[in-house]
């Protein structure tokens, strides 16, 4: 194998910008901004956004160059799109940086967020088991810290600890699964693994390895029954961290596992589209998807806390996304990417609204949203767009995401097999979902405000981020071809 360091460096330009940005934020804070408390926040925010913008730009200009460094990374269309996607979502999350009163160390927060984003962009392109593991762990470790960043609230610490314990367990499963795969095939390279597996055929050991990998996948995607961390983390973590966990982390996780499962382990997929099904990872993923759809949608009905409700909605969406993962083998990753990216936009937006609200009072219970239309028409309007997009109402992007994924799933085998039934169940459950989404909007748009609630001041960066996310949701909903065309 010829080691092409120049090519590697060229491919990793976005990551380089992110890491440099992280270092720069810390240095600048240390030597300059620390003595100017009034500007500390703005400097951290500006450097963070600048480095994200440069990384996004580099990701676009680097483009898809194919395998890098002997196939360790794979820079294809999916990788490029995902890099741009996660960087955009991270930029939206950075813009939601809490006010100085509630975040005493903005530079550290931004630096760690940039590290997490580096993990995401690497996950987008990782094409070798070790790189996959390292990228996932880089992202996860950064996210644990972000989740516990609000040192004034015990909930934040609880969120970080729960997330960390579950995440550590999932990482152990992932590593064990990888070691079994390595033992079976003698390679870490996804292409070599695929070639080896197609010669070997299925074996019990392979199934064990697949199961282990899928545990980690379920954790990363917040799918049932590996979802237990999600409600607590979404509830306790600072809003930008929760937004990042709900959006960019999910997008990157789905992409990395889709790459792992289809090009790498595609021969062990088994079939699920027709009866009788054959053994492989696809039936297991379908089971996880079904469990997530049911549990997420039904669990959300009982929630009175907005963030927990969004967590259960995230679990439900994970179920639909997993259906997209199974369909990706046949129709390509386009539908899955579209769904995950637009879901991320809506999730960032919803958490963004909560984040702004937190600055002027509690924003945990559903009733805390009451009268939002009076307190801030801008927030109420944006929230309506985000929530309706999550609910899948046209012309917002959330509708088309569902549509294109379900269409892809039904093309696998019509309604003749379990996949078709799952798609049908998912469509039926979307009617259930509308109920709890409308509960949010009922409070925000219909209910009168409580007596003593002040008007909400929306900081400029947050307003800009929310409007951008809302505009993107409308734009991509009306013109889905903008995304679908590139695949």
């Amino acid at each position, binding site marked *: 194998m010829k080691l092409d360091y120049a090519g590697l460096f060229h491919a990793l330009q976005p990551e380089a910008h992110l890491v440099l940005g992280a270092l720069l934020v810390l240095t600048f804070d240390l030597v300059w901004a620390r003595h100017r408390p009034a500007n500390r926040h703005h400097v951290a925010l500006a450097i963070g956004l600048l480095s994200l913008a440069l990384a996004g730009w580099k990701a676009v200009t680097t483009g898809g160059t194919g395998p890098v460094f002997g196939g360790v990374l794979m820079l294809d269309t999916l990788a490029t799109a995902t890099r741009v996607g996660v960087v955009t979502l991270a930029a939206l999350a950075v813009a939601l940086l809490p006010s100085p009163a509630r975040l005493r160390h903005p530079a550290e927060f931004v630096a760690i967020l940039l590290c997490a984003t580096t993990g995401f962009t690497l996950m987008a392109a990782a094409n070798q088991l070790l790189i996959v593991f390292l990228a996932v762990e880089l992202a996860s470790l950064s996210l644990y810290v972000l989740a516990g960043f609000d040192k004034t609230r015990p909930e934040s610490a609880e969120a970080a600890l729960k997330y960390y314990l579950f995440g550590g367990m999932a990482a152990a499963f992932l590593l064990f699964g990888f070691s079994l795969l390595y033992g079976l095939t003698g390679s870490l390279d996804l292409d070599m693994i695929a070639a080896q597996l197609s010669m070997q055929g299925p074996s019990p050991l392979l199934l064990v390895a697949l199961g282990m990998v899928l545990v980690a996948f379920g954790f990363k995607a917040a799918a049932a029954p590996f979802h237990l961390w999600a409600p607590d983390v979404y509830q306790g973590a600072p809003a930008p961290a929760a937004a990042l966990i709900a959006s960019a982390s999910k997008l990157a996780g789905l992409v990395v596992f889709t790459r792992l499962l289809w090009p790498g382990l595609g021969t062990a997929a088994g079939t699920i589209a027709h009866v009788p099904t054959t053994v492989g990872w696809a039936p297991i993923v379908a089971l996880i998807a079904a469990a997530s759809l049911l549990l997420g949608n039904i669990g959300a009905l009982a929630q009175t806390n907005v963030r927990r409700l969004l967590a259960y909605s995230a679990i439900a969406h994970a179920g639909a996304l997993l259906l997209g993962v199974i369909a990706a083998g046949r129709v390509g990753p386009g539908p899955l990417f579209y769904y995950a990216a637009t879901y991320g936009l809506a999730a960032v937006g919803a958490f963004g609204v909560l984040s702004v609200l937190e600055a002027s009072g509690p924003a945990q219970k559903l009733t805390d949203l009451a009268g939002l239309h009076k307190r801030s028409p801008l927030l109420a309007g944006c929230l309506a767009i985000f929530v309706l997009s999550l609910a899948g109402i046209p012309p917002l992007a959330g509708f088309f995401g569902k549509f294109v994924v379900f269409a892809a799933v039904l093309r696998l085998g*019509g*309604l003749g097999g379990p996949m078709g039934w799952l798609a049908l169940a998912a469509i039926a459950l979307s*009617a259930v979902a509308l109920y709890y989404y409308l509960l949010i909007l009922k409070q925000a748009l219909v209910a009168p405000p409580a007596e003593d609630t002040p008007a909400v001041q929306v900081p400029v960066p947050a307003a800009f981020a929310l409007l951008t996310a809302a505009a993107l949701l409308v734009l991509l909903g009306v013109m889905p071809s903008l995304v679908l065309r590139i695949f």
Partner: protein
Amino acid sequence: MNALPCTIYVAFTGALLALVAGARSAQAARLVALFTALTIWGLTLYAASDFVPAAGLQDLVNIPWIPELGIRYHLAADGISLTLMVLTGLAATTGILFSWNIEERTGEFFALYLALIGGVCGVFLSADVFVLFVFYEIAIVPKYFLIAKWGSTNREYGAMKLVLYSFAGSALVLAGMLWAYAASGGQGFGLSQLAMAAADFTRTQQLGMFALVFTGFAVLAGMFPFHTWAPTGHVAAPTGASMLLAGVVMKLGAYGCLRVAMPLFPVGFEFFQPVIAWLAITGILYAGFIALVQEDFKFVIGYSSVSHMGFVLLGLAAANATAVSGAVLQMFSHGVIAGLLFAVVGRMVYDRTHTRHLADLMALPLHRLIPFAAVVFVLAGLASMGLPGFSGFPAELTILIGTWQTKPLWALAAAGGVLIAAAFTLRAIQVSFFGKVAPVAPNRLERVEGNTLHLPPITWPEKLGALLLLGATIYLGLCPDTLLDWIRPALHSPVFQALLSGGPS
């Protein structure tokens, strides 16, 4: 004809403008909304003026939208769409006239109202099932907020029930249409395209797809036993929204059945035809009987809506040219009459007396207090009963004649519904407007004489709206051929010819 797509854009632009204007003053929002609705109505009438009836859909717009999935932004119209577009324009205009007294968050009310109109116009003009579905769902969400925010009686329950029923229905439609799309090889969603592909579907597929799509649309058309959202929703809704819900939105369902479910899956339709007919007849009779015993004036009208929509579904189920053209005529006629009835009950009576309880109304000499409302309601009631001279008569007669050609038994059973309609309408007229001051309720009598003897007079928007709707129903009663001449040629298109059996039109 080419002006028709503009109605969609005008409606959505008007919605934004009303929102902006509403931030300044309520009156500005009202005027923007009224002007928008008048423009829409004017556009539909202009389109009608140069409409040349022809068999089949006439293309209006046909450009690629999402080429990756073969989806085209394809709008087209024939006589059926045109009829319903004119109805939408009329219902939107009069609905705004009857919402003139909305004072709270006026701009938002009219913005949602116009967004709903935009969605409805889009459905009636779509020739691509995907486009139709998108507009169909756009029309769902505004209903929730219109009812939950500006409604009355149990409004949050009524709003949620209505929206969940609509959305569940649309989920069935989505499932059916995705199935058809997948089974046809994923080429596209064009109506003609899918109809061609559907010819190759197996019988099981046809039955399954038809059941999904038809049930989904029929929920919104108020088919028994999925009709329960309609009375509660209509009662909870503010007057303008009830007029639109009963007048136009229920027609979306019937239109979807006629335009999508039946032509695409003829084998499925043939199988389920008797089921649909009997469900429709059950709906006619059952809702009629329920209307007979309601204590709430608006519930009487709500159930009468379900009963009359049963005639539409029966006409569709009878599946011959006469019955189907009668069904379309009934859609128009019911849209006008139901709008009128809801306007009288919700706006003229309820907003003045603050009660809809028939027992309370009986204690009020309403025919003397608001004679205009009494006259309008009597005329509307006569129209609703299907008396000659009003639009209800040619519509229901055509449906019954057509049904007789297919199955005389169905026509006989449904004709009973006409009798029941007469009974509950006459009861409502008599009790509400010509009640006697009951000697057994002295307390109520005092209240009446103390508070409500001087009801506010009927305002000009109400008079104008009522006259427009009355004019429409009487005009159609006298010359139904105006619309039938548009509708009948549309049924000569190959798609419908394959579906409809027998009976000269």
